[in-house]
């Protein structure tokens, strides 16, 4: 594959090196002269000097025959523009954009720049997974399909421990698909009784997380669980 990587910061440089090792053809474009000269000592002719938001710089790098463009500069506007131009003007088959500020992701989506990757979001997801008190963990987001799968750990104060699955008022657009208990997973039936320490997996429409949290989370209104 011929891949153009824009931005020779830590992400771009390492990415270019990995892709070269996997025998892809790579051009890394960097617009800071000093950074370019540093990276060029290692990657040699695979690095090109210039501002990749200038169309002629992209054309000089051979964007017309590129299979993929990856924009990982530290500037979200630049990443959005480069990917938009790559996709719409040069009809590059695959683009990947880096989101520096997660709050800008909505703009990437608005302009059709997908997929986009945000290191901050990835670390937040990991944090959610590693810190169980966080409650609800996203396991999978299928953005196009409008579906997600989440995992919840039932604490001792969960409102559903000791209750039958068949008695739960699951919110519309959600489905309990699996229970992990003592390291083993099984598909619950209506008669399954939930226990403290169970991890339950549910598939749901986006935006239903809060309703599920309310259902599976700690009992809030002081009603006795005895």
């Amino acid at each position: 594959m011929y891949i153009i990587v824009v931005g020779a910061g830590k992400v771009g440089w390492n990415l270019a090196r990995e892709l070269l090792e996997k025998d892809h053809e790579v051009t890394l474009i960097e617009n800071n002269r000093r950074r370019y000269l540093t990276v060029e000592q290692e990657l040699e002719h695979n690095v090109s000097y210039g501002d990749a938001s200038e169309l002629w710089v992209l054309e000089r790098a051979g964007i017309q025959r590129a299979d993929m463009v990856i924009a990982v500069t530290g500037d979200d506007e630049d990443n959005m523009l480069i990917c938009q131009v790559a996709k719409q003007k040069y009809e590059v088959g695959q683009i990947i954009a880096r989101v520096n500020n997660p709050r800008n992701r909505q703009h990437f989506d608005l302009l059709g720049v997908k997929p986009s990757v945000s290191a901050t979001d990835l670390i937040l997801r990991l944090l959610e997974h590693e810190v169980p008190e966080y409650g609800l963990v996203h396991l999978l987001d299928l953005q196009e399909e409008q579906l997600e799968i989440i995992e919840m750990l039932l604490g001792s104060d969960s409102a559903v421990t000791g209750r039958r699955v068949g008695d739960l008022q699951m919110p519309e657009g959600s489905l309990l698909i699996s229970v992990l208990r003592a390291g083993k997973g099984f598909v619950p039936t209506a008669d399954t009784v939930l226990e403290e320490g169970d991890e339950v997996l549910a598939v749901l429409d986006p935006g239903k997380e809060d309703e599920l949290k309310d259902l599976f989370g700690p009992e809030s209104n002081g009603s006795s669980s005895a």
Partner: protein
Amino acid sequence: MLILIVGCGRVGSSVARAMLREGNEVSCLDEDPESHARLEVGLEKSWEDLGGQFTVGAGLETEALEAAGIERADAFIASTDGDNTNIIIAQIAQKRYEVPTVIARVLDPLRAEWYQRQGLHTVCPTSVAIDMLEDAVRKGAGSSNDGAAEAV
């Protein structure tokens, strides 16, 4: 008519003053609080006293755009010092907030031309400068050559 101007440098501030003078409602958004002083150059009263609005913030921040009134803006001008920023925020104004008139200042003629063809109204000062310089050179050459160049 409410005109929102993002990027209040020499160009943005001049356009803002002219639009206000013509009786429009004008709101400016700029990252740099100091830009407010530039707005008031040559004015006898403060920008706010004359009815203008000024918000500090970046054009990519939806909160800042909304505080500056983008949801009821009739026209949006992107005139920051970054071509890519102008192109991106102009598209946000167009697609997300559906502002009726959206104009982006783009210095690079190639980007200006391509985005223009995609339906974004771009103004390219560089192209204007190129045309003017070419004309000036031709006229200069023409006058010294006694009109010979005009015949070409």
